[in-house]
């Protein structure tokens, strides 16, 4: 039977049998339609990408105020377009490992303080120049300059010196960092000629597409770069285009009407309806993003760990996941890491809703009266509803929560990281170290739970410098346990990226690093002939 199916699916892929007939015959062989469809797409992939044509994406997250400069790249549209034209030193694979791109090889000294990146020869920029180690150093210089407005400035602060050494770039760090190569995968660090110092907005790098259209907030386009260094590996369509569609309904109708081939940010509440639309495929990816309830560990009443524990136990994570994300996510465990990260330990006990125990801890904390929780629509989609559900589950434990709904304007400047108990979101980082360093060490500007523990800081530093992966994994497990039982962070759930592709789109590979297959959807997909 399987041989028969394999034969049939190859016939479909080569165009000798149509899809409907195939599904019919597969059904006759007793195979479910869903499984038969999987077989088909495997066959199409095996048949190889179809070259040529125009591939279009309709994306949320673009504004008329955007610029091409990768340093200022903060929105989804620029992120996705950046992956079309830009090239990085290294890139994150779907399994969380690193793939060398412009860097051919990365090695470190035994103390993980000196890193040598060998730069690949004969990679060509879109303007015809060759990528040289000097361009790499200039790029890192531009992003790490203290006066820089680059969003990558923070993660590059550990760099002490850098220099060109033959065909390599040698970087010395102020302190040991075993994750240094992961920092180089940050999507802002697009290698540009002379680091983009001359014209950061030129949109010139070494990616699979050359920038042809740059209309901020409206549309972007690229044409296949003939001398792309990876040849046919990426960039199957002759042309790619991104249309900025911020309205979710318009995005969906554009996909259904065939004006675009793929969209991002499908709302969880309509996913079940969209699944029934013929030709539309929902692409979900479990990512690293999560939606925290943040408590300030140094501000009363949250400076009491019994109260913090009561508030953690009083959260019904399953209910929140079910009602707010409609199941498109996974429950959190009160530390900022999940299985999408390398070196994650999956044996940490899942915290469950336990109103009795919560009441016990609440009584022990000696707190009385209501607790003020601030929320807003902009914290995350459904944040106001999430706060209300939480209020109800807390009531079951005898804890009174008062909700204050803050205006979206100024939420990030006036409420988040300013008020002691509020809702927020985190997009996740490439590695555990980056996540902890960004928000959970004493000196972090974005320490939005005021988690200031010298012993924890030391653990983060030690783990950062540890090159033995087994030891490191154990260290991260210990950190997760401390965070989970003593931290100021309540994590109801990690979210999923929900994207959708239209008729005939093939080659999609999800990547937990980001939405739209890590931003490569346009470069890696093709249209069925």
């Amino acid at each position, binding site marked *: 039977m399987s041989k028969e199916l394999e034969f049939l699916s190859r016939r479909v892929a080569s165009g000798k049998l149509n899809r409907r007939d195939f599904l019919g015959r597969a059904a006759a062989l007793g195979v479910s339609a869903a499984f038969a469809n999987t077989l088909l797409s495997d066959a199409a992939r095996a048949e190889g990408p179809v070259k040529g044509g125009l591939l279009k994406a309709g994306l949320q997250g673009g504004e008329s105020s955007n610029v091409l400069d990768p340093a200022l790249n903060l929105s989804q549209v620029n992120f996705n377009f950046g992956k079309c034209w830009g090239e990085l030193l290294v890139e994150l694979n779907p399994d969380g490992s690193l793939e060398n791109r412009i860097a051919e090889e990365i090695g470190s000294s035994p103390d993980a303080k000196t890193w040598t990146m060998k730069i690949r020869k004969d990679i060509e920029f879109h303007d015809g120049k060759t990528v040289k180690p000097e361009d790499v150093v200039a790029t890192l210089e531009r992003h790490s300059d203290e006066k820089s407005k680059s969003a990558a400035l923070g993660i590059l602060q550990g760099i002490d010196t850098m220099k060109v050494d033959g065909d390599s770039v040698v970087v010395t760090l102020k302190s040991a960092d075993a994750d240094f190569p992961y920092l180089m995968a940050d999507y802002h660090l697009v290698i540009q000629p002379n680091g983009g110092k001359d014209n950061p907005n030129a949109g010139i790098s070494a990616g699979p597409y050359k920038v042809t259209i740059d209309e901020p907030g409206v549309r972007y386009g690229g044409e296949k770069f003939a001398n792309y260094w990876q040849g046919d590996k990426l960039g199957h369509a002759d042309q790619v285009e991104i*249309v900025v569609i911020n309205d979710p309904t318009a995005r969906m109708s554009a996909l259904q009407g065939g004006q675009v081939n793929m969209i991002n940010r499908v709302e969880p509440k309509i996913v079940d309806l969209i699944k029934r639309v013929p030709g539309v495929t929902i692409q979900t990816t479990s990512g690293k993003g999560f939606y925290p309830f943040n408590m300030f560990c140094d501000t009363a009443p949250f400076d009491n760990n019994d109260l913090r524990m009561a508030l953690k136990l009083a959260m019904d994570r399953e209910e929140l996941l079910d009602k707010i994300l409609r199941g498109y996510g996974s429950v959190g465990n009160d530390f900022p890491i999940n299985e999408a990260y390398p070196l994650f330990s999956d044996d940490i006990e899942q915290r469950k809703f336990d109103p009795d125990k919560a009441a016990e801890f609440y009584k022990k904390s000696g707190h009385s009266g209501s607790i003020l929780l601030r929320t807003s629509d902009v914290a995350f989609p459904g944040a106001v509803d999430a706060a209300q559900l939480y209020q109800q589950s807390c009531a079951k434990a005898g804890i009174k929560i008062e909700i204050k709904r803050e205006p979206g*304007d100024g939420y990030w400047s006036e409420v988040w990281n300013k008020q002691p108990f509020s809702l927020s979101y985190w997009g996740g980082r490439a590695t555990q170290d980056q996540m902890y360093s960004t928000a959970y060490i004493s000196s972090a500007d974005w320490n939005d739970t005021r988690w200031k523990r010298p012993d924890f800081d030391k653990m983060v530093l030690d783990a950062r410098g540890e090159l033995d992966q087994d030891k490191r994994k154990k260290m991260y497990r210990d950190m997760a346990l401390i965070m989970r039982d003593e931290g100021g962070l309540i994590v109801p759930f990690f979210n999923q990226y929900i994207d959708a592709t239209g008729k005939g789109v093939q080659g999609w590979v999800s990547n937990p690093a980001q939405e739209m297959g890590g931003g490569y959807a346009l470069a890696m997909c093709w249209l069925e002939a």
Partner: protein
Amino acid sequence: MSSPILKLVAQRVALGILLMLAVSVLIFAGTQVLPGDVAQSILGQAATPEALANLRAELGLNDPAYIRYFRWLGGVLTGDLGTALSSGQNIASSIGGRLWNTLFLAFCAAIISVPLAIVLGLLAVRYRDGWVDKLISGLALASTSFPEFFIGYLLVYFFAVQWQIFPGISTVYDGMPFMERLQAIALPTAALTLVCLAQMMRMTRAAILNLMQSAFVETAELKGLSAFAIIRKHALPNAVAPIVNVVMLNLAYLIVGVVVIEVIFVYPGMGQYLVDHVAKRDVPVVQAVGLIFAAVYITLNIVADIASIVANPRLRHPK
């Protein structure tokens, strides 16, 4: 033309200029009280304190408000709208294309809706209180009563998704073939036409019906003129003033009030541009767009005023 009219027109224009100045002060003051801070908004949640401080210094956010007002007004009067804080691009040149898009959409909607509204209004008067009148009024009022986003989505659902006749998103760009451009804006044009049709139609109907009671219409009837001839030759010219007023009001709406339609159809016009920059606290852009909208509104109102002055025989032929 006699001097009283010239004087009146000059008065209106002077008043308009004064109004513009007052509006410019208001716009400037209004943008000062927006909560939050430009630098913070540009960098968003991902702002580091270093990047914030650098950006604030670069944008000159530390000067007092009145100094920034006069610097800005001076620039505007010399045709320099400044540069956008968030993107560093010249505002005048980036607004240019979008203003043209907005005007083009407004123009297309206007050349369909204005004649249609007036003709329907005349028909309604001719067959007043009959089924034609009731049908026209009913449909027009129904289409106005629905919120514009509902009409927009309804059109998208049927014409773009179900039947796939017109595109559901109206992304237009420079160098787009004219026919393609027309096709792209078919749905937003239809939505706008439906939204603003009723008011103009009802006003035409009311203004002319009012005149149908007058003595000169009765005379015309007694002369034996046909109903259409009476409406066309005697009633319509005398109803021009109120009709022009409501038409101008709707034209102004078509230019400055179409944010919702632009968002639904992803049309790259002024409204979307304004909303993006309000969200980013990009004050120079918000001020520039606000000023342009105010200028459009005031100019159209002056035109309406002048038209009613000129159309008024008592003012044209003073004793």
